[in-house]
């Protein structure tokens, strides 16, 4: 709070020029103007759609791959080495390749987000499946559960906490990649707003967009927390509360 006040005073007195950083009051005014004009909600929706579609594809792929490699020996031999290779490639380094493949429209942006969000899901779910307490599996097996029942009642619920950790990572990676992907020749979205603002040295708009990114990140975290509270009610910390 004190920082905001200092910042405001510095801006008003001219210590921080408008071109370097807009005053908080100016940022707020701009934000309300952008909301009122529909500029911010419209572009936010475009960005959100990119994240959601990218995540949907990436999370689904990650889930399937992790199940295949976590639940079967053959799957592990086929999938895991590939995933480990994939892990060593920084997703953003693929941007040029994706532009060549998919052009400069929506596809490379969504593809990048999807590609980046596969791995956290895969890695966490896979290790979650492998880390399920063998004593629980054995106990359940002694009661005559079939393999499918074993997976459904024991292995998947046991791996769920890890999956949710993976989901949280995936969400934050998706937003990170969104920021970069939107710098590719976008004609709409938060990245487009930022690029435009940069060209016109509108630091107030840039700050507004940064705030929106932060809110997106917080929102994603909150979402996973809600899911966790619902899905992991059996945990002592949740039971107590």
């Amino acid at each position: 709070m004190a920082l905001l006040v200092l910042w405001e005073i510095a801006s008003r007195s001219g210590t921080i020029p408008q071109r370097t950083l807009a005053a908080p009051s100016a940022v707020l005014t701009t934000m309300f103007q952008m909301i009122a004009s529909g500029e911010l909600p419209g572009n936010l929706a475009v960005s959100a759609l990119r994240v959601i579609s990218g995540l949907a594809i990436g999370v689904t792929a990650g889930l399937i791959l992790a199940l295949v490699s976590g639940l079967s020996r053959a799957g592990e031999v086929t999938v895991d080495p590939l995933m480990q290779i994939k892990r060593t490639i920084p997703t953003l380094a693929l941007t040029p390749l994706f532009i060549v493949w998919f052009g400069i429209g929506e596809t490379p942006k969504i593809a990048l987000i999807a590609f980046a969000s596969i791995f956290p899901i895969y890695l966490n779910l896979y290790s979650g499946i492998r880390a399920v307490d063998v004593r629980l599996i054995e106990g359940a097996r002694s009661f005559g559960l079939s393999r499918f029942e074993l997976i459904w009642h024991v292995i998947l619920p046991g791996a769920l906490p890890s999956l949710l950790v993976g989901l949280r990572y995936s969400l934050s990676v998706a937003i990170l990649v969104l920021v970069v992907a939107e710098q590719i020749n976008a004609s709409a979205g938060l990245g487009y707003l930022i690029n435009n603002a940069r060209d016109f040295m509108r630091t107030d708009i840039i700050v507004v967009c940064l705030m929106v990114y932060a809110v997106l990140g917080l929102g994603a975290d909150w979402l996973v927390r809600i899911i966790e509270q619902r899905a992991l009610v059996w945990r002592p910390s949740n039971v107590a509360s």
Partner: protein
Amino acid sequence: MDARLSFQADRHPADRGQNSLRAVPEPIVRLTNFTRAFGDNVIISDLDLEIGKGEFVVLLGRSGSGKTTLLRTLAGLDDATGQSVRIPGSRAVVFQDARLLPWKKVWRNVALGLRGLTGLVRDKAERALHEVGLGHRLDAWPLTLSGGEAQRVALARALVREPELLLLDEPFSALDALTRLKMHELTLALWQAHRPAVLMVTHDVDEAIALADRVLVLDQGRIVTQERITAPRGERSDVARGLRQRLLSALGSGAEHASVIPFRQSHEAFA
């Protein structure tokens, strides 16, 4: 010392101890010449065991005597192909750690693997939980249970299957003494009500004496002695003393502490 010698003699295949293991009417478990080894490490060798219908057998043994391996075989958890092993189809195990699934409510843990309509299955599970005195914790999460409660749930989960053979793997060793006594009473009551054959593994001699029809002592993969207890439970204090002595010495028979130099000898060495 005499007792110890005689128990060591028991370890020869042709002795009376081994023969009497076969003298069980209507055996529902029968292992003949059962051997189990991991690599060169022989865990159980040439073991014969029969358990009669409704019989309460306690298996005593020190750590590493092979008792858990034997129990796993009887539970069908270890593959025993090529061996002469007969075990009933309906079995249930209570493990030392209750092994409840923490993400399933207590009654669902009891109902695990039961087939049928949800309502009927729930009724069955509820009845079993009432029987072990946990009717009020049907919808509790397992991680909120005390150790004794968790073991009661594990007992209910085993009994709801109406097993012919109930296997108990040191089920009470992690409980405090008072809870353990209560669990003994409960176990006996449930056994008398349902009459499964029971094989209970423990290293607690008093527990064995309090519960068993027959006590077996396992050492280095062989049954080195067995005691049949005919006195009714609760009136065993007269026989307990002698029995305890015999069982303890049987348990100690393999434990010649080779690496420990007896005090007298070292004393002599200095003299």
